[in-house]
C-alpha cells in the first residue's frame, strides 16, 4: 500500500467525517456560553468605560473611544494571525476544519479592522487634528482591511472548493507579513500614531482605572469572536454537506 493511500484510509477518512461531527457537538455546547459571556462582558465593559473610568488628563472624554478602538485593533490582528495559522494547518495537514475556520474568520476580522479604522478616524480628528494620515500604522491597517476583502473575494472567485481553499490559504499566509509590520510600525518608523500603551516591554502605560474597562471590553470582543466564529463555521460545514448531497443526488439521477 502506498503512503498516500494509507493516509486516505487512515487519517483522511477520520478527518473528513468524525471530526466535523465531533466539532458540531463541542460547538453546540460552547456557543451559548460564548454568546452569553460576550453580552455580559460587553455590557459590563461599557458600564465601566462610561461610568467608572475617568477622563484623560490630556485627551479628556475622547479617551473613551479607546474602549472600542483598541479591542477592535487587537482583534483585527488576532483574527488575521488565526486566519494565517488555520491556512498553514490547511496546507500542511490538510485538516478539513482548518479551511472551514479560516473561511469563517475572514468576515469577522474585516469587521474588526473596519471598526478600528472608523473609530481611529473619529478619535484622530479631535485629538491629532486630522481624520486620516498616510503614516505607517494607519496605512498598514488599511492594507490589512484590503487583505481580508481580497481573501473573501478570492473564495467567491474560484468555483472548485479545493482549489479555492488552496489559493486562499496561500494569500492568507503571504499577507501575514503585514501583521508584524502593523504591530511594530510605530517603533520602526516615525508615525503620527503613538507607540503601544498596553503590550509594551515595560508594562502598561495606562492607569488602572482605564486599563480595567479596556481589558473587560477586550475580553468581551474575544467572546463575541468565538460565538460568531462557531456559528459561521457551522454554516460552512452545512454548506460542505449540502454540496456533497447535491452531487450524490446528481449521480443518482
Amino acid at each position, binding site marked *: 500500500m502506498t503512503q498516500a493511500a494509507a493516509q486516505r484510509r487512515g487519517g483522511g477518512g477520520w478527518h473528513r467525517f468524525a471530526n466535523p461531527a465531533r466539532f458540531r457537538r463541542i460547538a453546540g455546547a460552547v456557543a451559548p456560553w460564548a454568546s452569553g459571556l460576550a453580552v455580559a462582558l460587553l455590557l459590563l465593559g461599557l458600564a465601566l468605560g462610561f461610568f467608572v473610568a475617568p477622563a484623560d*488628563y490630556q485627551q479628556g472624554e475622547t479617551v473613551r473611544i479607546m474602549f472600542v478602538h483598541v479591542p477592535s485593533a487587537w482583534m483585527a490582528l488576532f483574527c488575521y494571525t488565526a486566519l494565517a495559522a488555520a491556512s498553514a494547518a490547511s496546507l500542511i495537514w490538510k485538516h478539513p476544519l482548518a479551511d472551514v475556520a479560516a473561511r469563517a474568520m475572514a468576515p469577522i476580522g474585516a469587521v474588526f479592522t473596519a471598526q478600528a479604522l472608523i473609530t481611529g478616524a473619529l478619535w484622530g480628528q479631535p485629538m491629532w487634528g486630522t481624520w486620516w494620515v498616510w503614516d505607517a500604522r494607519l496605512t498598514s491597517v488599511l492594507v490589512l482591511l484590503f487583505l481580508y476583502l481580497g481573501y473573501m473575494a478570492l473564495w467567491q472567485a474560484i468555483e472548485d472548493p479545493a482549489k479555492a481553499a488552496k489559493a486562499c490559504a496561500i494569500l492568507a499566509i503571504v499577507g501575514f507579513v503585514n501583521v508584524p509590520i502593523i504591530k511594530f510600525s510605530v517603533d520602526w518608523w516615525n508615525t503620527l500614531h503613538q507607540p503601544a500603551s498596553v503590550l509594551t516591554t515595560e508594562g502598561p502605560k495606562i492607569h488602572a482605572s482605564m486599563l480595567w474597562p479596556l481589558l473587560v471590553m477586550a475580553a468581551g470582543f474575544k467572546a463575541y469572536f468565538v460565538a460568531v466564529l462557531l456559528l459561521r463555521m457551522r454554516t460552512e460545514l452545512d454548506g460542505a454537506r449540502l454540496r456533497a448531497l447535491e452531487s450524490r443526488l446528481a449521480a443518482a439521477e
Partner: protein
Amino acid sequence: MKRKQRRMWLLISALAGLGAVAALVLVALEDNIVFFYGPSELVAKAPAAGQRLRIGGLVAVDSVKKAEDGSVNFAVTDGNNTVPVLFRGLLPDLFREGQGVVAEGALDGAGLFLASEVLAKHDEKYMPPEVAEALREQGQWKGEGG
C-alpha cells in the same frame, strides 16, 4: 508523515524568504515610510528651501507666540536641535507647549519652517488628571501639557 514535514519546511522557508524580501523593501523605502523628520534629522538632511516635508518633535516651552493676524510662531525641538515654525490656521486641541507636534510645510531660505498644516502627536500614556497632578507635584514625572 514525511510529506507533511516536507510541506511544513517548504512553508516555513517560503515565509522566511518572504519576510526577508519584505524587510529589504521596507529598508529601501524607509525615506518614503517615515511620516516626519525630527529637528536633528532635518539639520542633517539640509533640504532645499521650498521642498515639501514634515517635521515632528515637541513644541519648545515658552516658544509659542500668537500674533494679531492669527498666525502662530513656535519652535519644534528634540532636545538637541530646534526649528522655528510659522503657521497660520487652526491648531488642534492638543497643541500645547511641551506637547508632541507634526507640521507639514517647507523651509524658507532663512531656516524658518513655513507650515501649512499642524497636527498634534500625543504619547502612549493615559491617566486621570488627579494622578497626573500628583505625579507632577512629587516631581517624579515631567508631565507634558497641563
